[in-house]
């Protein structure tokens, strides 16, 4: 079915419906765990843009959605929530995964809550709810709306996608009002790693509207006329375009300092990459989340003074050895593979350098720099060492130049990958050559994403190339998905199982930041010594911006939010920072 009109690399399509699973996966990249120990966030409000007073302009968002809009805005429907969270619906606090405090914890900005604090055992979390916020229909927003929202997740399990509630295997046992403006969350075990889902990933909905609907069917509400607290109001929706207008009564606005400052935001539905990229290249859209081949000549060169891109990495793209395979269960073989791959070559030749090289400790750089320790990063490119390791483990070269074990079984494997991800195919070509050079034979096997998911989760592969579905709120989250034995059958593709590692992972949610640093260090050591996974490159967020008519964009030097428009609630943070120029 691929007519070859354009190649569609991974990550190029991350929208609605079409490639639903992939879109969800990328949405959740925004995930950041809050590692703030006993955090009492400051109660100052978020700061917005620099040019005071000026309101105007029409911003066009450019993100291939793969299908037309359904004009539904239910913030709990993963197929449509990227068009409602951030624009219309807001969370309690904003957790920025791209910016850390000096201790490595992610930066938290109060949003609909003014503060939050953990009990010393990390089992009780208390939010103080902001006063003076209005729903877009004029009714006041209160702590009751927050209590209602979380209890709605309990009443309709299909809303509880992150499994917060104990009935859904999460640690949350109750959410209750305390006084008039505080909401207390009670967990049945230390639950720091859930802060992100509670504070950042759950949009707050108005009780006076949702409370009168069938509470067991909230997930199937169309919500065609969303009422939220956010910076924008959904003004008009057709199959091809959603038009948002600024909320004139937004709570962040103060006299003489309007927020948001952009009058209108349009979100067209692009069915494929080509028209979406063209719209950016012609300068009609200003905020892009697109994969653009040859971005320098196709996009930047047409107006280098105003057009920019920034691709922050958030998770690893890795080679997964199936540890139940008798050859791959041999550490020497995995070491040899890890040392045979020249990661920067793969990055340059397979990913045009857009996706940087990964490292064996599993810490995505530069995003999680404060968690990385160079001394642990011991397994690096060294092909002669790779062969040496194989020889030392008793492997000998057969007549076709491939190493084989004493029983004559050659190191010959298939690598499963997802068809249509052309950049991965290119990377795998490089990997194939590099492995061949040290006497390991691999063949790439492309699969549709559905069978690929079934095969990788079920262990029906020898080697697999891919990345985690839900990426990193700090490096811990990705490492947990990769290494926790409870995730065998889902994200632990390699089927790695170690009681020691499990114990480390289980300690994390009740640990201080300093202890968490220790835990992640030890997990990095596991990565480098046991080689359960071989990170090769780092997956990035595609992001382009045009400064001709608007300023206030997130940049590499000011990474105040995850930049692509599909990352929520970060998109709302960006929208409150943008301002019209000229």
């Amino acid at each position, binding site marked *: 079915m691929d007519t070859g009109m354009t190649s569609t690399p991974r990550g190029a399509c991350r929208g609605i*419906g079409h490639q639903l699973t992939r879109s969800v996966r990328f949405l959740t990249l925004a995930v950041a765990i809050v590692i703030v120990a006993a955090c009492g966030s400051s109660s100052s409000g978020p700061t917005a843009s620099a040019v005071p007073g000026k309101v105007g302009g029409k911003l066009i968002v450019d993100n291939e959605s793969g299908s037309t809009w359904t004009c539904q805005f239910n913030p709990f429907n*993963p197929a449509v929530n990227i068009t409602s969270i951030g624009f219309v619906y807001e969370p309690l606090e904003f957790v920025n995964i791209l910016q850390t405090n000096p201790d490595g914890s992610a930066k938290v900005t109060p949003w609909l809550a003014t503060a939050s604090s953990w009990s010393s055992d990390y089992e009780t979390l208390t939010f103080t709810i902001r006063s003076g916020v209005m729903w877009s229909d004029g009714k006041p927003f209160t702590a009751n709306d927050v209590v209602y929202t979380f209890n709605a997740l309990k009443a309709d399990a299909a809303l509880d996608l*992150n499994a917060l509630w104990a009935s859904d295997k999460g640690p949350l046992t109750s959410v209750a009002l305390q006084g008039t403006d505080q909401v207390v969350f009670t967990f049945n075990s230390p639950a720091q790693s859930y802060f992100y889902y509670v504070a950042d990933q759950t949009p707050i909905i108005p009780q006076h509207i949702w409370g009168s609907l069938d509470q067991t069917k909230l997930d199937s509400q169309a919500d065609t006329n969303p009422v939220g607290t956010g910076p924008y109001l959904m003004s008009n929706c*057709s199959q091809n375009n959603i038009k948002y207008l600024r909320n004139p009564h937004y709570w962040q606005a103060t006299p003489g300092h309007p927020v948001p400052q952009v009058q209108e935001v349009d979100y067209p*539905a692009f069915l494929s990459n080509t028209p979406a990229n063209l*719209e950016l290249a012609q300068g009609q859209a200003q905020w892009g989340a697109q994969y653009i081949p040859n971005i320098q000549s196709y996009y930047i060169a047409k107006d280098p003074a105003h057009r920019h891109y920034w691709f922050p990495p958030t998770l690893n793209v890795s080679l997964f050895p199936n540890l139940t395979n008798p050859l791959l269960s041999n550490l020497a073989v995995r070491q040899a593979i890890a040392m045979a791959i020249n990661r920067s070559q793969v990055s340059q030749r397979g990913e045009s350098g857009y996706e940087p090289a990964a490292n064996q400790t599993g810490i995505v750089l530069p995003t999680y720099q404060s968690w990385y320790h160079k001394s642990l990063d011991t397994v690096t490119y060294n092909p002669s060492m790779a062969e040496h390791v194989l020889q030392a483990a008793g492997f000998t070269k057969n007549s076709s130049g491939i190493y084989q074990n004493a029983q004559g079984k050659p190191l010959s494997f298939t690598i499963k990958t997802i068809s249509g991800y052309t950049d991965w195919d290119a990377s795998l070509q490089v990997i194939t050559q590099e492995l061949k050079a040290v006497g390991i034979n691999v063949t790439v096997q492309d699969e549709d994403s559905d069978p690929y998911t079934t095969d990788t989760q079920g262990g029906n592969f020898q080697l697999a190339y891919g990345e985690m579905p839900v990426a990193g709120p700090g490096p811990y989250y990705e490492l947990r998905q990769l290494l926790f034995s409870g995730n065998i059958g889902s994200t632990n593709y390699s089927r790695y199982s170690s009681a020691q590692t499990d114990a480390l992972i289980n300690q994390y949610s009740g640990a201080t930041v300093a202890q968490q640093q220790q835990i992640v260090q030890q997990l990095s050591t596991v990565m480098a010594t046991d080689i359960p996974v071989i990170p090769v490159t780092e997956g990035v967020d595609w992001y382009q911006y045009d400064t001709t008519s608007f300023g206030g964009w997130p940049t590499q030097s000011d990474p105040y939010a995850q930049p692509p428009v599909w990352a929520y609630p970060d998109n709302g943070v960006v929208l409150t920072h943008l301002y019209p120029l000229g």
Partner: protein
Amino acid sequence: MRYIARRLGLFLVTLWAALTVNFIIPRVMPGNEATAVLATFRGVNPAALHALEIEFGVNIHQNIVLTYLQYIANCFTGQFGVTAERNPVITEIMGKLPWTLGLVGVTTVLAFAAGTLVGAVSAWRRGGHLDAILPPLLFIVASFPVFFVGLLLIFAFGVTLNWFPLASNYSIGATPSFSLSFIGDVLDHAVLPGAALVIVTAGLWIYSMRNNMISTLAEDYVKMGRAKGLPSWRIMFDYAARNAILPNLTGFAMQLGYVLGGSILIEYTFSYPGLGYLFYTSTTDHDLPLMQALFLFYTFAVLICVLLADLLTAGLDPRTREA
């Protein structure tokens, strides 16, 4: 009458078979859209999964016969459930149908009319300039896949000359209305995909019309017409073409049925949001209710058109009625 009754009976039996196959196939396929939606979240929340499965109507462990009867009833009342995006399937289909009918339906009619006319004329002037160029050329082009012709057109008229838009059904930001400017915009977007379809399909009509026409021209009544000194256009249209068009007409009725299904490639190439594109995305998303409804829709359309073709033939050609 017996002929018509037999055709109707056959139609009903085929429809029932199609409905049943459509019921069985998704149930023996591995995975479902509820797991597809949730596979990407942290862990799989069993409660959420079950709630979604009920909503999508999969894996609900109820009596299979009951489910089957419910399904048949739903098919006749148009209740196909919701898509993975939780949009009613019928809304989704009805939203896309006008675009496909408009683009592919109109071009099929155009291709048929143009092809038949050219075929008739070139057979009449056998060996003339028209006959020497158009039929062989278009017949060669007809063997190209439609997306290939589409890509060539995009490259030539969209990218290089920049005369027409590359994709979509109307300009970004345009508001649908019955204003002249909007209709113009829609036509502007339909030119390239429409042209690709006409180019690829017209050749076959020309070919079959020309061949039928040539054999008809050898008939005695045509010679009779000439002998009578009738004007040549009258012989051409009233004597020859009128008889030669019979197989083309029934072919056309059947072709209309394939319009819906055949639109996938062209809509994909031009990112045209019609039924074909919807079908494509429903497959890649593993969106079972949508896929099922579309399959049914296509089957139904083809069956109806085959039935119409049968009835049309019966009306036009008395000999078939005896059979």
